[in-house]
């Protein structure tokens, strides 16, 4: 029995290692083959995955419903602009080097999460969900009104990032006869950030803090009785989740090259919740899978709207691709919760676990 187990494990490890290496290689060579559209879509998916990792730590693993994730994305995006901007466009800017601005923007998002944690620490379940809704409206109000900082309705341009002498903008750079513009260069940055984000989240979830978070989600009081500092963990997770959102915001800003306040509304927060529900609550792979699904769907539908039945280009009277995508992921959220508790990752898992381990429970009781 133990022999077969061990040999199975010996076989399994290399297969998995090969699969990861192959996937990594494919992702690394994609910029040489894909056009700008696909790379940009991929970058959106990477940024979304980073944000989804954050909200999955908070909502999925710790059971704290947050509808204010878009706010922290906005803090990251606008924070980067404000730290890196040189003030030539008439908007406030400190003119810091890009890498420092990015780090500071992520820290700022974390700080914003920390400032909100006195409220977050006292509320549970639906109360917390609706209180975080307030963040969205406060955020929108500030974004539209603080003209000197955010550029108001029209938003502000995002200064390109410079890292080790390499500027992530459209200045031509030939690599093996392939012109590398902003998206090609950002692709590698995004991959690196996502890899780091995934590894860190995995470390958190598999280690001591992850167990504590799941215990808090499943039974807050029992967790406290067992000696877990509940309030401190909840505040810490809120800060960490905000920092992930901030990082996602920075990456999104760099890809968009312009930040507009409208984007960071309630719909975005709901999108992130949809991602983690579809992918799988509390799981790292689930966050990434859900983010790829939800963020690539509208892009795919837009690209192939001619070939698809029912979907037509925006403004022609039929169902626009964006709307079709929203129908699909709205339905996906409902369908996943009803028929596939545990999300897409459950489909991939070869041996089904007990459904208890990934479902949040207890918090609302």
């Amino acid at each position, binding site marked *: 029995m133990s022999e077969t187990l061990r040999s199975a494990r010996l076989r399994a490890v290399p297969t998995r290692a090969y699969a990861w290496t192959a996937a990594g290689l494919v992702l690394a060579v994609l910029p040489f083959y894909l056009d700008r559209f696909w790379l940009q879509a991929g970058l959106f998916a990477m940024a979304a995955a980073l944000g989804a990792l954050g909200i999955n730590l908070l909502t999925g693993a710790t059971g704290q419903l947050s509808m204010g994730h878009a706010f922290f994305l906005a803090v990251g995006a606008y924070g980067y602009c404000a730290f890196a901007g040189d003030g030539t466009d008439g908007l406030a800017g400190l003119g810091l080097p890009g890498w420092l601005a990015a780090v500071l923007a992520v820290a700022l998002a974390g700080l914003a999460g920390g400032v909100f944690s006195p409220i977050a620490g006292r509320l549970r*379940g*639906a109360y917390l969900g609706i209180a975080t809704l307030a963040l969205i409206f406060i955020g929108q109000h500030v974004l*539209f009104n603080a003209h000197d900082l955010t550029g108001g309705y029209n938003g502000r341009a995002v200064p390109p990032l410079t890292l080790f002498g390499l500027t992530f903008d459209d200045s031509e750079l030939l690599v093996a006869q392939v012109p590398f513009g902003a998206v090609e260069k950002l692709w590698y940055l995004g991959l690196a950030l996502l890899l780091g984000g995934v590894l860190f989240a995995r470390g958190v979830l598999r280690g001591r803090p992850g167990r504590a978070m799941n215990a808090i989600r499943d039974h807050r009081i029992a967790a406290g009785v067992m000696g877990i500092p509940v309030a401190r963990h909840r505040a810490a997770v809120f800060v960490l989740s905000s920092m992930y959102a901030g990082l996602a915001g920075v990456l999104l800003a760099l890809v968009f090259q312009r930040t507009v306040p409208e984007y960071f509304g309630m719909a975005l927060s709901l999108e992130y919740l949809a991602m983690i529900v579809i992918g799988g609550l509390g799981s790292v792979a689930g966050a990434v899978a859900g983010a790829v699904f939800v963020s690539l769907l509208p892009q795919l539908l837009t690209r192939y709207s001619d070939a698809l039945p029912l979907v037509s280009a925006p403004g022609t009277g039929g169902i626009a691709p964006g709307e079709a995508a929203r129908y699909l992921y*709205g339905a996906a959220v409902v369908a996943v919760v009803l028929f596939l508790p545990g999300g897409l990752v459950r489909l991939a898992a070869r041996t089904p676990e007990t459904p208890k381990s990934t479902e*949040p*429970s207890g918090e609302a009781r």
Partner: protein
Amino acid sequence: MSTFAEFLINGVSLGSIYALIALGFVVIFRATEVVNFAHASLLLAGGYVTAVLHDDIGFWPALLAGVAGAALVGAAVEFLVMRRHRGGDHSVLAIVTIGVDILLATELTRRIGTDILALGDPWGDAVVTVGPVTIAETRIAALLAAALLITAFLLAFRYTSWGVAMRAAAERQETAALMGIRLGRVSLGAWAVAGGLAAVAALFLTVFPTPGLERATSLAALKAFPAAILGGLDSTTGALVGGLLVGVTESLATGYQGDLAFLGRGIGDLAPYLVMVAVLLIRPAGLFGTKEPARV
């Protein structure tokens, strides 16, 4: 002074509308312990039905149809979605309502598009002047209708067998079921009532001085969330007080916008949320909410 009185009366009227919406929200929560994030979409559905039908069948039948329509949508959501989830985990069900909300809101905003639909109400932009105070007729109608509906609801909640069943189910589901109360019907009824109340609220959210039913109407409806929360999710009294508080705050903040210019434009839309956060900081379960006893 008279402008203050106007703001106050408008605020109370607006607040009574929020109270209507929050009441539905609380009813669903009490009957099923589910937080219904699709509530704003239910409201939009009711308003849309009224707006589409009023030209053909007249205003009052259209309003009835809107109420029936929203009640039907609510019941359908309960029957087709909520009832299918056997896990019984309420935080997961709350997320399902977000999915339902995405679906409903997408469909309705697609139908409404960029139009602003009139609901064909009989009051128009007529005003009533009492001494120095000028109030729009729609505001008075809203206040009266809300007061009437809320009283009727509270009486039904207290004295009819439906209300008793609802309260019993809220008290303890299992025991209620053992007593012969059909929980399925109770939650179906709760969703339908919530939809109907929301449809009436939709009417008064879109009449004068607001231009009409548009995409942004659901944003106005969202303000019932802070109303329900700051009153306490499981308290009908809380929904009323919360609604009034939110309405008056919003009306005053919008009215004195000029003096609050340093806070930026549109502070009135933000005020309800700020009040909610302030209240929750002091009372995490809302003003009238029961603090959950901690059981291990």
